[in-house]
C-alpha cells in the first residue's frame, strides 16, 4: 500500500460521489453521494498523515464533526420535502422558475 494508491482510491470515491450527485434523482441518494465525497477527503487527510505525518488526523476529526452537523440539517430538509410532497424525488422541488 502506497500513498499514491490511497490517493487514487480517494479520487475514485470522490468521482463516484460527483457522478451520483449529478445523476441521482432521490434526495437521500444525493445526500449519500455528498457523504462519499466528504469521506474521500478524509481518506486523503488520513493517508497523508500516515505516510508523511502532519496535521491530517486532527483535520479528519474536525471534518467528521462538521459533516455530521451538515448531514443532520440535510436529513431535516429531506424530511421537510417528504412532508410536503409525500416523496423525496428531487424533481418535485422544481417549482421555482424564471
Amino acid at each position, binding site marked *: 500500500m502506497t500513498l499514491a494508491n490511497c*490517493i487514487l482510491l*480517494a479520487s475514485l470515491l*470522490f468521482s463516484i*460521489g*460527483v457522478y451520483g*450527485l449529478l445523476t441521482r434523482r432521490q*434526495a437521500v441518494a*444525493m*445526500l449519500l453521494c*455528498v457523504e462519499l*465525497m*466528504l469521506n*474521500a*477527503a*478524509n481518506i*486523503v*487527510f488520513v*493517508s*497523508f*498523515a500516515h505516510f*508523511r*505525518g*502532519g*496535521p*491530517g488526523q*486532527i*483535520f479528519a476529526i*474536525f*471534518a467528521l464533526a*462538521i459533516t455530521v*452537523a*451538515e*448531514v443532520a*440539517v*440535510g436529513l*431535516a*430538509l*429531506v424530511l*421537510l*420535502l417528504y*412532508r*410536503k*410532497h409525500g416523496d423525496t424525488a*428531487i424533481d418535485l*422541488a*422544481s*417549482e*421555482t422558475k*424564471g
Partner: protein
Amino acid sequence: MPPWLHIFTLELAVLGIALLVLLCDALSPLGARALGWLTAIGLVAVLVASFAVELAGSAPHGVYVSGAWVLYFQRLFLCAGILGVLGSIDWLETRVARRPAEYLVLLLASLVGMMLLAGVRDWVLLVVAFELMGIPLYVLCAYAKLDGPAREPKLAAEAGLKLFVTGAASTALTLFGLALVVGASGSSSLDGPQSANVSALTGVGMLLVLAGFGFKIGAAPFHMWIPDTYQGAPTPFVAFLSVAPKAGGLAALVVVLLSGWSRQHELWAPALAVIAAASMAVGNLFALPQKDARRLLGYSGIAQMGYVLVALCARSEQGIAMAIFFIASYVFTNFGVFLVVHAAAENSGGHSLDEIAGLSRRSPWLGAALLVFVLSLAGIPFAVGFWAKLFVLLAAYQAGLVWLVVTGVVLSVVALFYYLSVARSTFMADGRSAEPVRSGLPLRAAIVLCLAAVVGLGLWPGPLLAEATRAASAFAGGP
C-alpha cells in the same frame, strides 16, 4: 483567562446575545417583536463597543490575527446583522409567530462564523468558521411555517434543499482540495508552499479549493443555486443571504489567495480572472429576461461578485482596498433593494416585476428608495455604487488588466437596461394593485438606514474609502 481572549470580545458578545434570546424565549413568551428589538439593540451595542474596545492581537501559534482588517469586516457583518434582524421582525411576527427565537439565534450563530472568518490564519479554523456561517443558513432558508400560505412552504423546502446540496458539495470540494494541499505541505497554516512551482497534486488541490469558494460566493460558473434559492426562501432572510455570506466568503478568499498563496499567483490568477469575467457576463445577461424581482436581483448579485473579483485579480494593496469598499457598498445597496421588494410584495402578494410596477403611486417614499438603490447597483454617479464600480475598474486598469476592464464596462452598460427598466416600471407603469403599502416600523427603519448609507456614502465616500485603505494596508503589512 488567557491573555489573548480579548481579541474575541465581539464574537463572544454576539454569542451572549444569542444565549440571552434563547433564555428569554424559554422563561417567558416575549413574542417576535420584543425578541427582535432585543437582538437588534444588542447588536448595535456590540457595534458601538467595537469602536471603544481594544481588540488587536493574535491567538497562540498565530492561528487567528485581529486588527484593522478584521475590524472592518466585523463592523460590516454587524451592520448586516442589525439590518437583517430589523427587516425580519414583521415577517417573524406575522408568519412564524410561535418560534421567532430560533430564527434569531441561527442568524446570530451565522454572524459569529462570519466575524471569525476575516481573522483566521489556519485551515482548520477557516473550515470550522465557514461551516458555522453556512449550516445555519441552510436551516433559515427553509424557515417557513409548514402550514403557511399555499406554495410558500414548498418553495422554502426547495430553496433550502438546493442551497444545502450545493453548499455541502462545495464543502466536499474544498475539503478534498485542502486534503491535497495540506497533506503535501504538512502544515495546516494558511501560509502555503514557499516556492512558486508546486506539484501537480497541490495545484489541483488549490483549484478545487478555489471552486469551492466560487460556490460559496455565488460566482459563475458555480451560481446555479442562487436564483432558485432567492426565489423560494423568505425574502427578509434572502436580503441577508445575498450580502453577508458573500462578504464573508470574500474576506476568506482574500486571506487565502493574497496572503497564503500569493507566491503561486501564476496558478490561480488566470482562473480567478476567468471566473470574474464569467460572473459579470452570466449575471448581467441572464438578468435581462427575468420576470421575478428576486431572480433578477440574484443574477445582478452574481454580476456584482464578478466586479469584486476583478479587483482581486489586480493583486495589489489598492485592489484589496477597492474590493472591500465595493463589498461594503454592495451590502447596504442590495440589502435595501431586497427589503423594498419585500415591503412591496407583503401587500401586493407577489414578487414579480408586474406586481412591483407602479410602486411609487402606492408609496412614494418606497418608490424613491427603490430608485436610489437600483441606480446605485447600476453605478449611476452620486450613489455609492458608482464610486465602488469606478474604483474597482481603476484598480484593475492600473494592474494592466485592460481586457477585464473593457468587459466590465461593456457589461455594466448592458446592466443599465434591466436596472433602468425596474426603475421605469416603478414610476411609469400602472400596477395591478393600487392599495397603499403598509409596513411595520422595524422594516421602515432598516430601509431608511440603508438609504442613508447609500446616499451618504455616495456624497461623501471619503471616510469609508479611508477605512478600507487602512484595513487593506493593515492586511498587507501583517497584523
